[in-house]
């Protein structure tokens, strides 16, 4: 019961920003930052450091875990300006791994697989018209994004068509974005009306 009132109070504190900036909103904002950061730290401890570092070290004497632990502590040195040089080693390892992972990942899923799908044979009948349009759209949007040559002549005309395809895609994204934002509001109002004020029936 008291929990619901706390949640409702904080919800209203945030909504009060719609009228204008005020101390209630700023209190809620700062509370949120603190609680989110605190939760993040607690979860890192409980779900990562405890099972993946502490337990193997304490129970299994798995000393190889000391390597990532050392790299992790070196990373923390970045919090102080003089520790930047130490942290650089951890950042180098971390960035190297993620760069290495990115190469095959993007190559397979976003380059080869998409090119293969773009080049597949068209289906029979009217569906071929749609496939042709997809291919035209794909090539013309690529033409638009190709900035190494001036957008003139055939390239310019293609790029122009590409812009139209892009605008339709952005329009679709905008429509969906509106849908997403409205959904978030609906859930908060459902909470206020149902869980707090009890004017809507419980599920």
């Amino acid at each position: 019961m008291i929990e619901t009132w706390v949640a409702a109070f904080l919800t209203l504190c945030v909504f009060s920003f719609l009228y204008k900036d005020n101390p209630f909103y700023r209190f809620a904002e700062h509370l949120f930052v603190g609680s989110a950061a605190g939760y993040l730290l607690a979860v890192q401890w409980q779900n990562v450091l405890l099972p993946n570092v502490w337990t193997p070290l304490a129970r299994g004497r798995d000393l190889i875990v000391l390597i990532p632990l050392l790299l992790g502590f070196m990373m923390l040195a970045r919090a102080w300006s003089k520790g930047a040089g130490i942290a650089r080693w951890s950042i180098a390892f971390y960035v190297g791994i993620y760069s290495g992972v990115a190469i095959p990942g993007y190559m397979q899923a976003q380059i080869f697989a998409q090119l293969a799908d773009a080049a597949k044979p068209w289906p029979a009948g009217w569906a071929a018209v749609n496939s042709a349009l997809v291919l035209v759209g794909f090539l013309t949007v690529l033409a638009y994004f190709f900035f190494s040559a001036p957008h003139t002549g055939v390239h310019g005309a293609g790029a122009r068509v590409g812009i139209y395809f892009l605008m339709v895609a952005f329009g679709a994204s905008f429509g969906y974005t509106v849908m997403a934002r409205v959904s978030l509001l609906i859930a908060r109002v459902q909470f206020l009306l149902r869980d707090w004020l009890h004017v809507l029936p419980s599920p």
Partner: protein
Amino acid sequence: MAWVRKLLSIDRRIIFLLVAAGVVLPLLFPLNLPVTLTPRVKAAFDAIDALPPGSKVLLSMDFEPDIMAELMPMSVAILRHCFRKRLQVIAMTLYPAGTGLGERALTTAAKAEGAVRNRDYAWLGYKSGFQVVMIGIGENLRGMYPVDFYGTPLDSIPVTRGVNSYRQTAMVINVSGSSGTDYWIQFAQGRFHAPLVVGCTAVMATDYYPYLSSRQILGLIGGLKGAAEYERLIDDFGDARRGMDAQSLVHLIIVMLVIVGNAALFISKRAGDAGGPAAGSMTR
């Protein structure tokens, strides 16, 4: 054209009130408009529905409270479907603040369908690292998750016993509010060839159509509307379906605002009112 100028510089709080009314009124006085099904959500449902009972499904709920309005009802609907089909769910999250939400989705769906932890589902909890975790699961699940969220070794849990990579699961389902979905496509599907179904926020939904065409993902559930469709498919009337009337009305209000804004500008231009506010500040 003073009235046009006045209309275009209307106080933003009046617009806010309109939007608030558009949400509150349909919730108080529901019309229960029908939820139309779309092929992509149906495809997601069919892919999960076709799995034989007892199959293991890896579900990653990669979202935080900011977008839980869209993805929580979706997760609950998918989980209820899985439990009803007697699929065994291995659930996880790649977001630290998603830990509480994933657990809540599981307990809500389990309570509704009579599913039992460890027998019907396992909750692995959070791990940091996105791509690294996805590849790690493909290589050696226990390297990433030696124990579940509650500290139980995976070999002691019936659902996870014998599962050490995507190979022992029939499907991966990713419910996500971020580009993490790109990585599930790249690694779970691309590298390890796991069949993949995606549920995402409406903002992201349009970006994944190329992957549907290439069959890198088998189905797509987008936003609260997608969740409402899924609820309809499993014959449930949850939060997503309850919100659909409000969704329709607010969309209509926003469309009307856009039309009125453009019409007023058009009239203002025709009247040669150069001083009229063309595209006013959004903070007014």
